[in-house]
């Protein structure tokens, strides 16, 4: 990945006006799909993504069921209207791969042994894409899973870091993803302090890699606070402490 133009100006501002360690504005709304067992809408900058969780439910076809644990099925899909040029609604190679990595990033957080012979279906629908949709999708799916009341070891929060103009920046947007030096999405379990997804597109030296990882984890912790407050708001309203 070779960068052709400068993406950070003299005052240190990025293409969308953020500084290098600034997250885009994140909003999460829980329980927006009535028919799902759990759901969430995330707005991650210009990304708008709905995650809906169904289950644990019966597995069809039956031969897919596992006798000792639950099956997780994940579908990441971009709507035809989510990008500036129409995207074919048929599942692309990229979507199939992202579905797989999202499933693998969520599985460590789920206690699948509690639901043998059942299935959990996670649907992630991108309504508007602006770079970092897999991270936003993971964060929304994690909230939707918690909303569905599935046993979880921890929440999963995700955020990307990367290299733009030889500087390590947090939360890469679409332009930085396409024109920048490197993009590193990270999914993280904030209480257990464990990484469940780490991908890297581009080149980083060991120092850059370490800084990038630290920054991404810092971004994940910020996202976690928003996930937490959105869930608290849905279930407990303004009450923060239990009245005795």
């Amino acid at each position, binding site marked *: 990945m070779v960068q052709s133009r400068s993406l950070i100006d003299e005052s240190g501002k990025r293409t969308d006006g953020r500084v290098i360690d600034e997250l885009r504005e994140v909003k999460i709304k829980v329980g927006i799909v009535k028919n799902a*067992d*759990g759901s969430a809408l995330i707005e991650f900058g210009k990304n708008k993504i709905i995650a809906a969780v169904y*289950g*644990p*439910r*019966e597995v069809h076809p039956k031969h897919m069921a596992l*006798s000792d644990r639950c099956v997780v099925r994940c579908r990441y899909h971009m709507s035809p209207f989510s990008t500036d040029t129409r995207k074919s609604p048929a599942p692309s190679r990229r979507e199939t791969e992202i579905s797989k990595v999202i499933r693998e990033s969520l599985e460590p*957080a789920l*206690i699948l042994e*509690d*639901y*043998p*012979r*059942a*299935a959990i279906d996670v649907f992630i629908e991108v309504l508007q894409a602006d770079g970092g949709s897999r991270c936003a999708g993971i964060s929304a799916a994690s909230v939707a899973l*918690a*909303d*569905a*009341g*599935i*046993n*979880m*070891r*921890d*929440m999963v929060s995700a955020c990307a870091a990367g290299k733009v103009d030889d500087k390590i920046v947090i939360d890469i947007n679409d332009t930085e993803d396409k024109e920048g030096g490197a993009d590193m999405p990270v999914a993280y*379990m*904030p*209480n*257990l302090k464990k990484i469940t997804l780490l991908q890297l597109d581009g080149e980083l030296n060991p120092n850059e890699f370490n800084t990038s990882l630290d920054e991404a984890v810092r971004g994940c912790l910020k996202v976690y606070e928003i996930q*937490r407050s959105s*869930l*608290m708001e849905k*279930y*407990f309203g303004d*009450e*923060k*402490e*239990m*009245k*005795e």
Partner: protein
Amino acid sequence: MQEVKRKYVIPGDIVAEGNLRPLVNVFKNGNSIVATRIGITESNNDGAKVIPLSGIYFPRANDIVVGKILDHSSLSWSVDINSCFAAHLPAQDIFGRDFSPAHDDMGRQLSTGDVIVARIAIFDRTRDPILTIQDKDLGKIPTGELIKISPTRVPRLIGKRGSMIQTIEQASSTRITIGQNGIIVVSGKDKEGITLAINAIHIVEVEAHTSNLTQRIRQLLNVPESEIESDDTQTSEAGDTTINQDELNSNNDKEMGMINSNGTK
């Protein structure tokens, strides 16, 4: 009396620290007890647990459930119990041990679409739940309005010693059958009474974790002030969910029997 500590948690939050026993919806991570569900924690000397506020119904042996007949094979009916497993009601449970698929017509006893109230006789991780209707107040439900609520709200709907459901039943002159799986049948002669009871149930579902709920339901149902019990305080309201969860865990039959007999048992 033991001191009970409560707080609101989401998955991953620490419920308690120290050498406590992990009870339900928690796991032990080093020296901490960690929540696995969104809910209200309860920790005392016995251990720590989380009373969940969301989730589907996961069957347990001896639960009373309301189910719909889906189909039947030559030996059993398949029943939808609002869970990730389809339950089975063996034909021998109704016809007796001398049941013969060649002579007995299963369709005449229960047909597709019939609603039954049943007890989960056997269930473990390896097999689908087996139901029985061989108990008092169990069997086919002839009439009524079916409503579905979140199974996590069932203890709150029953209330402390059945107080909430008795209030609704008496004020609306209806008979309410509650399944642990969140399916409820409201029956009665008066259509307005049924509507009133359904509205009250929906309010309980939405506002299950809030304070003074029983009082608000009584106001909605126009129950006179004099009938309001002295235990209707904020503390007892908050405690209702937990206390009834305990009661239900240990004694579902007793609790459900009380409900099915319209509070007279």
